[in-house]
């Protein structure tokens, strides 16, 4: 299986995501969140937040555009028919609140062959409108060879 090793370190253009109140609510409902900070504006206000609080895992939503841009990069030659999500890590900074504008930069960090499987690792760094890093994500995909 060819490895795009010469693309390690490639960074993709920053992608801006505007966090909408109803998107936060929709995501919270889809994952079964019950914490009112994600669902109830009065509860969020009561806890001192300007709007609904995004669940930490909402990071996958504001990162997805940047991540998809890399997945569809022809230089990485990703075989979608054999792609699975291997592992995922997030480290979080300040909370993301509806109304925030989050800019994500994605970098292709590594590609390696292990036991016939290709492991690709990407890193996302997401920053809010005040320049605070709200999350750093490590995304590992596994691509199986032809079988």
């Amino acid at each position, binding site marked *: 299986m060819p490895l795009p090793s010469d693309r390690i370190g490639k960074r993709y253009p920053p992608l801006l995501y505007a966090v909408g109140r109803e*998107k936060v609510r*929709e*995501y919270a*409902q*889809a*994952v*079964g*969140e*019950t*914490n009112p*900070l*994600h669902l109830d504006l009065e509860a969020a206000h009561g806890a001192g937040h300007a709007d609904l*609080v995004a*669940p*930490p*895992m909402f990071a*996958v*939503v504001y990162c*997805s*555009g940047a991540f*998809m841009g890399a997945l569809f990069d022809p230089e990485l030659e990703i075989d979608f*028919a054999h792609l*699975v*999500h*291997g*592992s*995922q*890590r*997030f*480290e*979080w900074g*300040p*909370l993301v609140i509806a109304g925030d504008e989050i800019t994500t930069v994605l970098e292709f960090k590594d590609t390696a062959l292990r036991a016939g499987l290709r492991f690709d690792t990407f890193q996302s760094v997401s920053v809010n409108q005040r320049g605070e890093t709200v999350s750093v994500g*490590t995304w590992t995909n596994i691509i199986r060879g032809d079988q």
Partner: protein
Amino acid sequence: MSSPKVGDEVQLRVTPDRYVTVRYAGASGDFNPIHVDEEFAQQVGLPGRILHGLWSMAQVARALEPLTGGDPSALRSLSVSFRGMGRLEQEIVVSGAVTDLQDGVASVRLDAVQGATKLIKGAIATVRAD
């Protein structure tokens, strides 16, 4: 349980309903047909539509709520490896325990299982423990 101690345990039981992958696809933007199209999933050799791994990871995050005291900012990090494929309409049990407490940060180790299938094994979370 807002100040975690070593040995504290958490557990979350959740049964994904028949349409959860459709709602999650809309919410997350991940419309991979293996999650939403029964016929397509079977054509590529799966037993049927499977759960999004990141939905299952979100359940692991939710299981930590008793340790964060309902403050989402207390969850500092979460790291998971995806194993077996998650199915619809079968109960998932997320369970974990605090394994370490250092400098005001609790480390929690968790697994998510569905019947005999391990969906996520050895997840590690760090939670602020004020």
